[in-house]
């Protein structure tokens, strides 16, 4: 069989398969001896690369697979709907609530209340500009004190922190106690 035709068959088979196809199988389909087959596939793959085509042929063990060239992945990603991410996960929202009601607070205070590490949430809230560092606590290690920002007020459509609805006695009492423990 003509080399050109073998190439086309390989192209059709690799495309339709979508998966990796063994050299053996390709050799059987094209009725070409396996060494010739391998050199044809390599030649085809080289041409794709040389021409900077959108697709490439990769070798996976003794199999060949068609794939998009990595260079174009940013374009390819545009065909799928972007995943909408809720900017505030539940954990982050909790951390934000603690900061809003108890500001200024340190990381350790927040962690005492929530019982878990809050670094990611604090980082995310800083990124979103909802909180900011307003100073250092006068305590060993001089931990940062966090407060909510004007952006926070805008996002939650309130004029000032004092407008936050009061939380019930119980809810206040417990976190305060926990915070005090945290300070020690």
């Amino acid at each position, binding site marked *: 069989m003509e080399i050109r035709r073998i190439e086309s068959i390989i192209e059709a088979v690799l495309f339709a398969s979508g998966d990796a196809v063994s050299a053996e199988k390709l050799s059987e389909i094209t009725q070409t001896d396996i060494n010739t087959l391998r050199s044809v596939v390599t030649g085809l793959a080289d041409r794709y690369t040389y021409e900077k085509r959108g697709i490439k042929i990769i070798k996976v063990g003794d199999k060949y697979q068609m*794939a998009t060239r990595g260079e174009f992945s940013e374009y390819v990603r545009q065909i799928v709907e972007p995943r909408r991410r809720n900017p505030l996960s539940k954990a982050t*929202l909790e951390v934000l609530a603690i900061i809003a009601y108890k500001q200024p607070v340190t990381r350790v205070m927040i962690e005492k209340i929530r019982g878990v590490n809050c670094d990611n949430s604090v980082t995310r809230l800083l990124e979103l500009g909802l909180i900011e560092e307003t100073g250092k606590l006068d305590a060993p290690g001089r931990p940062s004190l966090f407060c909510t920002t004007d952006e926070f007020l805008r996002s*939650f459509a309130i004029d000032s922190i004092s407008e*936050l609805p009061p939380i019930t006695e119980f809810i206040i*009492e417990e976190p305060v106690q926990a915070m005090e*423990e945290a300070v020690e």
Partner: protein
Amino acid sequence: MKQISFKLEIFEGPLDLLLHLISKNKVSLYDIPISDITEQYMDYLSEMKHFDIEVSSEFLVVAANLLYIKSKMLLPKYEGEQEEDDPRTELARRLEEYKRFKEAAVYLMEREAAGSHTFYKMREYIEPRLIDESLTDITVKHLVDAMAEIADKLRYRLPIKAKTFKGLVGREIISVFSKVKAVLKSLSNLKKIRFSDIFKGVKSRDEAVASFLAVLELIKMNRVKVVNSDEGVVLKYVKNTKEGALSFGDSQD
């Protein structure tokens, strides 16, 4: 009579049957010999019954229509009467339309053979981009709910520790610490203080409680001895046994 054995042909519907009869009789769609065709149509329906095939209402509707057309055509025409439309026209139009779609179906069948030679592939897994939703969907209620949830979680934490009473002094925990320092300072100077003097100049209940807690703390730390004397309850200074600075934290052990 010759015994005719035949397989009853199945038709897609009454129009399919009519087209079959018309083509079998080699007549034009536009000049249907309505009597003959109606007769053959009715024969077919009785054949269906004979073969125990259910005759659907659609076949009966067309049968009624054929009989109606036949009767209309049998009516004598009077001279001078306006030429009426051929009662077969509507039926012919319907048959023609249906016939065209039967042809189109044959065309599609041929196309399908062509389409079956083409293969496609499945979509690759493509990692979607992440886009932050706007913050405008989040309200103060979310904050309050989050806070309520935190309270719920706290309720199930470890039992409340003995030092919970410190909550009584509100946020001013530092004041207990500062009171400890203040009391120790006066004690190191004066060596002894009347218990009541500790509360001199106290401005709030919180401060008073803090002062009291400071005394308790010092007793626990063995930095103060409580003595009953003529002057009332007196706190006596005890020299720090350990060298080094005052360590509030150590007292918790």
